[in-house]
């Protein structure tokens, strides 16, 4: 879908986006190295390097390959998935505050996962691979409910109604979740509460393998839809005037956003606000054209979550706090700042 840059402006934008992406990749690399060195057991960069190429002690290998690496890879993947999901939602709803967390899609995925955990134990490896499937069903049903409730035949999809309905549905789902969690035995409760708080720390390679296929399929598909998103962002009437099948395209994009959010939440837990901040910073830097904003959002989300995860592991050492709490503490003020700046 890359088109030949038609004029000077376009070429400059592309160059800018390419620079931004390169810088973000370097920053992610840096965060990756710092994150590798952060934790209860200190490893120097040289030790990490040696271990990485198979020259470390058994203990170092265990720490690096079985504990830190899956967690870091997972936070990169989850961050990218959530940020792209948020970018799509903001595009189709034309609401700067849309985000899978505040819209209740994460809560829906969460409810499905809690149901799943209360019926199956988490001891065997197999259930991990079904986790995203369940989360997707939950997220999909919730999104459908919110969409139906906020859609009006005369006015189409109202951006503010979407948010208000999302907040209400999320409130309902969390109280249902509360009923379920109280009945769990303490072991299951521990798992669920950490998971809900957005903890990546129980992660192993199984979680990475459970999430990776979803992202590998969905992300390229979303990038192919960048131009459709550009047209949608112009508004419903303009979009249909330009020949877009608004309703169908919106449903397809919504399904993709739900897929990304659901699978990310299934393994990463209730991580809020990454889907908000990632796309926002991206748009601020490279503008509103989605062929640039989408990939930059993905990288930005990955960078944000890997940073948040590193902070979560290092602030209160030796204790770790769930990453979702860090993102909420950073993200909620940013959300409120955006809200305060917004016009009515």
């Amino acid at each position, binding site marked *: 879908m890359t088109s030949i840059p038609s004029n000077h402006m376009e070429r400059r934008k592309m160059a800018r986006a390419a620079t931004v992406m390169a810088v973000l990749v370097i920053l992610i690399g840096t965060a990756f190295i710092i994150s590798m060195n952060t934790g209860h057991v200190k490893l120097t960069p040289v030790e990490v390097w040696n271990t990485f190429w198979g020259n470390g002690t058994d203990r170092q290998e265990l720490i690096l390959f079985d504990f830190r690496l899956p967690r870091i890879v997972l936070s990169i993947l989850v961050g990218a998935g959530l940020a792209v999901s948020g970018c799509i939602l903001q595009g189709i709803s034309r609401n700067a*505050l849309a985000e899978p*967390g*505040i819209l209740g899609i994460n809560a829906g995925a969460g409810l499905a996962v809690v149901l799943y955990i209360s019926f199956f134990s988490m001891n065997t490896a197999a259930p991990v691979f079904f986790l995203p499937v369940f989360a997707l069903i939950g997220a999909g049903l919730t999104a459908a409910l919110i969409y139906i*409730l906020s859609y009006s035949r*005369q*006015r189409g999809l*109202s951006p*503010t*109604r979407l*948010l*208000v*309905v999302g*907040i*209400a*549905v*999320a*409130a*309902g789902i969390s*109280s*249902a979740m*509360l*009923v379920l*969690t*109280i*009945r769990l035995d*303490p072991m299951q*409760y*521990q798992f669920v*509460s*950490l998971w809900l*708080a957005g903890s990546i720390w129980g992660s192993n390679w199984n979680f990475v393998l459970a999430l990776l296929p979803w992202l590998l399929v969905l992300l390229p598909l979303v990038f192919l839809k960048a131009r459709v998103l550009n047209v949608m962002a112009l508004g419903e009437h303009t979009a249909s005037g330009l020949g877009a099948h608004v309703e169908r395209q919106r449903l397809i994009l919504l399904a993709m956003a739900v897929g990304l959010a659901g699978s990310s939440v299934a393994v990463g837990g209730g991580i*809020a*606000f990454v889907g908000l901040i990632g796309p926002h910073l991206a748009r601020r830097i490279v503008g509103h054209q989605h062929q640039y904003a989408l990939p930059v959002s993905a990288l930005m989300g990955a960078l944000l979550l890997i940073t948040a995860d590193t902070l979560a592991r290092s602030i*209160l050492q030796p*204790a770790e*706090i*769930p990453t*979702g*709490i860090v993102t*909420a*503490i950073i993200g*909620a*003020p940013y*959300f*409120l700042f955006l*809200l*305060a*700046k*917004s*016009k*009515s």
Partner: protein
Amino acid sequence: MNNNRAFANEAGPQLKTRPMAAVAILAGGLIVLALGIAGSISVGAADISLSTVWEAIFHFDANVNQHQIIQELRLPRALSGALVGASFAAAGAIMQGMTRNPLADSGLLGLNAGAGLALALCFAIVPSLPFSSLMLYSFLGAAVGAGMVFGIGSMARGGLTPVRLTIAGAAVSALLIALAEGVALYFRIGQDLAFWYAGGLAGTQWLQVKMTFPWIAGGLAAAIILSRSVTLLSLGEEVATGLGQRTTAVKIACMLVVLVLAGAAVSTAGPIAFIGLIIPHVARMFVGVDYRWIIPCSAVLGALLMVFADIAARMINPPYETPIGALIALIGVPFFLYLAQKEKRVFS
């Protein structure tokens, strides 16, 4: 066109007051409330006949086992249910009138989350804190939550719109709950806190009733004194100023009353949302737009809802208790969605 008609439909019947209906609700409500409390006392793990309930209250005999159960467990529980319900509903009514926001509720505007964070900190740092100080900290927490929501909501260009308040409330609550969760996980008090968050009256003792009663009674009395001013505010700030009201002073007084009512209620029964949202709307539907009637009727109806929800919470799945917050959300969420549907002019 459609919009105009909706507005006309709404404005027509609503700009009336119906004192007769209000008096009927107050009188009938209090009678049903007394029956409800009696019912709440008689149902439970051990069913006790109503005549025994009567005896236990008016001719208490310490040697009778059932009298003990009633005096020590059931009676404080039923009474605090009524108090908590009345507080949440009256607080919601004041907030809705004062901010002219049909979606105002202590749960939605960050008060409950703020009180929750304060209590999490108390449980974590000083587990043995007496209930009286817990209650004061919970006032403080509610004030912080409300301050953040209203502060940020009014910073925005275009002012304090209902939608903006609701969204700011959701974000502030997310922040405060995340902090409370962090505290809970760090100090390993998670499931204790979850029980409290679920809301409920299990384990309520006379101590809590005695501690909260003066605050709630004072808060309700102040609410009724302020009710005339709330009616003026609900007509719009310009109208209120034009009629000679010092709006800032009145708003501060209203906010203090709301904080006391919501804080006392949250510290007893946990952060129960939606009572303060639903009940004032129901009251307004029956008695019209005058807050001198809406506030007392809300208090009575809120007490009723809470007492009956508590009975239901115990009956649904005995011997376990269903979290009462979840039960009320079961009614509250659809009601919220209905309001969002109805109040088109607010959301478009």
